[in-house]
């Protein structure tokens, strides 16, 4: 009996052992299958379970002025969307949402009734709108993180900076021209998530590497404001169509201000007409009028055709060229070259070009950069209009000599005038000082660049002396004189082409004043252009006071002291109609 029991027990033990052995064998086999045979497939499955990919759009870079003040930046915002499947009462909810967001309730109701899992409602909503929408407590409303392009100085340099569209893509101005620098990269990132789908993303800083670069401009926010204020005053006072002003450092070509009026607010670009968005300083050509006389005189002197004391007979105010008669504002007889500039004699300037010939005139103007783009790098830059001299008739040559029958941009004019201020050397205009990487380090620095010498240093000094006389009480631009500073300038009053394109309009003018100070070592060049002023149209009356205001305040702001002794101070107030 004992033996039988023992046998029975042993048999059962063996059965149990075999059973456990088989179980362990099976487990082992499964472990081998999981760990070795199917490991790569299972690892992939596991990864898909706890990781996911998200689309990352790097933030657009900033636009800064020369003192690192923000002119354009990107800030966080929210967008609202809906899951129509979860919306219980589309009609009622659409009315409530539409009243907060100020959108069409009928269209919104259609969106909320479309049965889709997701439908966008409105992007970039304000914090107040978010608060009010959340208070509605509507199930199915989704708030998503978004970004918004913001311009803290509102209209300041609005047309220069430009704006971006809904997809953060530059559409105008620097935003468009330097889109490739500013634009953040778009990519997909793999992130870790838990069983409920929440993101476990400790590496958010990785996203920052996809942000766009920034632009540091040569603009100075305060000088820009000074220019815009002066321009607004003059355009309003003379009920003009528009105005432009540019402030430049002649020694480096750096643009400190580029002002336009009427103003444009890129924060609300859709509220403005397309025409007001354009940076007309760069894109729009205009006939500059008598300002061009300084370039004619400079070239004639530089090529040895005449000196400041060379005299020309000004025909007592009327001179027949071909079938046309050219007039001066005042009847004058013999004038020196210096006096021709001082009194802005059209006839005297025509006489100079008759001495030099039309090819020399063409060479002079192209030498100063007219008829071709300056290379500033902004989109839509105009080269102006300067046809080849072979196509000029006698009257064309005469008209071009005093700035009619050709066109220039305000930027070209500033570059040309700056060449005289810079001892005859043309500098490439600079608006972007440097580009920065998203880390804040400098990516590319743009140094002042000499383009060419157009006239000699001596000639430039002689022209400056002549331009100084323009601002004297006897000249055409005494309204530009600043007490304590030796201001050099030139007035310009140009007739505008008639709207129908046939000849010149009788009452439409462009008033211009271009100049710089101080005379010996010019620090600032300023050009002011006023389009279609009404009460008066002379450059010396309309544009010169704005020029004076911009230059005087900018000189004070930059701490540039007066260069004249008290007894040398030239100041004058004149309402005379001189040009």
């Amino acid at each position: 009996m004992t033996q039988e029991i023992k046998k029975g027990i042993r048999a059962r033990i063996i059965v149990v052992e075999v059973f456990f052995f088989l179980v362990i064998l099976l487990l082992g086999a499964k472990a081998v299958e999981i760990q070795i045979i199917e490991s790569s497939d299972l690892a992939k499955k596991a990864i898909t379970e706890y990781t996911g990919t998200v689309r990352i759009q790097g933030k657009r870079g900033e636009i800064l002025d020369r003192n690192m003040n923000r002119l354009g930046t990107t800030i966080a915002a929210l967008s609202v969307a809906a899951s129509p499947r979860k919306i219980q009462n589309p009609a009622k909810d659409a009315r409530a949402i539409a009243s907060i967001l100020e959108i069409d309730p009928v269209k919104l109701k259609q969106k909320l009734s479309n049965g889709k899992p997701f439908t966008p409602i409105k992007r970039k909503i304000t914090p107040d709108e978010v608060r009010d929408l959340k208070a509605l407590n509507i199930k199915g409303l989704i708030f998503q993180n978004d970004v918004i392009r913001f311009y803290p100085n509102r209209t300041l340099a609005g047309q220069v900076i430009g704006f971006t569209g809904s997809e953060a893509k530059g559409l105008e101005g620097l935003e468009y021209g330097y889109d490739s620098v500013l634009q953040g990269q778009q990519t997909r990132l793999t992130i870790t998530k838990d069983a409920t789908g929440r993101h476990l993303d400790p590496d958010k800083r990785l996203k920052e590497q996809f942000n766009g670069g920034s632009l540091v401009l040569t603009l100075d926010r305060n000088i820009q404001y000074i220019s815009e204020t002066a321009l607004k005053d003059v355009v309003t006072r003379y009920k003009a169509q528009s105005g432009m002003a540019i402030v430049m450092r002649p020694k480096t070509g750096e643009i400190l201000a580029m002002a336009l009026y009427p103003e444009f607010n890129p924060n609300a670009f859709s509220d403005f007409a397309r025409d007001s968005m354009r940076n007309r300083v760069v894109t729009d050509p205009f006939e500059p009028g008598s300002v061009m006389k300084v370039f004619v005189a400079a070239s004639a002197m530089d090529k040895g055709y005449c000196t400041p004391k060379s005299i020309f007979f000004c025909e007592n105010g009327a001179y027949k060229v071909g079938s046309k008669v050219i007039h001066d504002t005042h009847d004058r007889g013999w004038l020196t070259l210096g006096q021709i500039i001082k009194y802005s004699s059209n006839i005297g300037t025509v006489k100079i070009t008759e001495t030099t010939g039309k090819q020399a005139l063409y060479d002079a103007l192209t030498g100063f950069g007219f008829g071709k783009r300056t290379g500033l790098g902004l989109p839509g830059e105009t080269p102006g209009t300067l046809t080849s001299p072979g196509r000029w008739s006698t009257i064309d040559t005469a008209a071009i000599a005093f700035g009619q029958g050709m066109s220039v941009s305000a930027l070209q004019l500033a570059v040309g005038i700056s060449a005289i201020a810079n001892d005859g050397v043309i500098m490439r205009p600079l608006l972007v000082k440097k580009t920065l990487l998203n880390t804040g380090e400098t990516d590319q620095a743009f140094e002042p660049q000499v383009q060419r010498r157009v006239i000699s240093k001596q000639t430039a000094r002689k022209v400056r002396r002549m331009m100084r006389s323009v601002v004297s009480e006897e000249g055409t631009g005494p309204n530009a004189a600043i007490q304590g500073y030796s201001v050099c300038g030139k007035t310009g009053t140009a007739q505008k082409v008639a709207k129908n394109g046939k000849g010149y309009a009788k009452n439409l003018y462009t008033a211009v004043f271009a100049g710089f100070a101080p005379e010996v070592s010019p620090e600032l060049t300023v050009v002011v252009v006023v389009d279609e002023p009404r009460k008066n149209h002379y450059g010396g009356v309309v544009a010169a006071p704005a020029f004076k205001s911009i230059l005087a305040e900018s000189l004070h702001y930059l701490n540039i002291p007066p260069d004249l002794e008290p007894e040398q101070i030239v100041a004058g107030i004149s309402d005379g109609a001189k040009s």
Partner: protein
Amino acid sequence: MVWNADRIRKNGVKQEIKKIPGRWLVILLFFLCELFIYTGMRVECTRKGFQISQAEQVRKRSESYRKELIIERERLGSPERIATIARTRLGLYMPKQGQVVYIDQ
């Protein structure tokens, strides 16, 4: 008799149990420990991940707030606003010619 049979069976089982080598128990214990430690570590890892993620959210919110403050400062310091305040509230005006003294010259 029954009592005897039970006793003999129990003795047999005890003898069989004694036959199981101690090292298997150690191995079993080791794997059990490993399982618990691994599970604990994964749980802790996930918890820390959440904490880091929350801390990152706080950092992001703070950074965003800082950026908003900077932009607000830019807006408040815009020349247009400063000039308006200077003129309307403080009664200041741009100095006329001769009213500016350059002290560093």
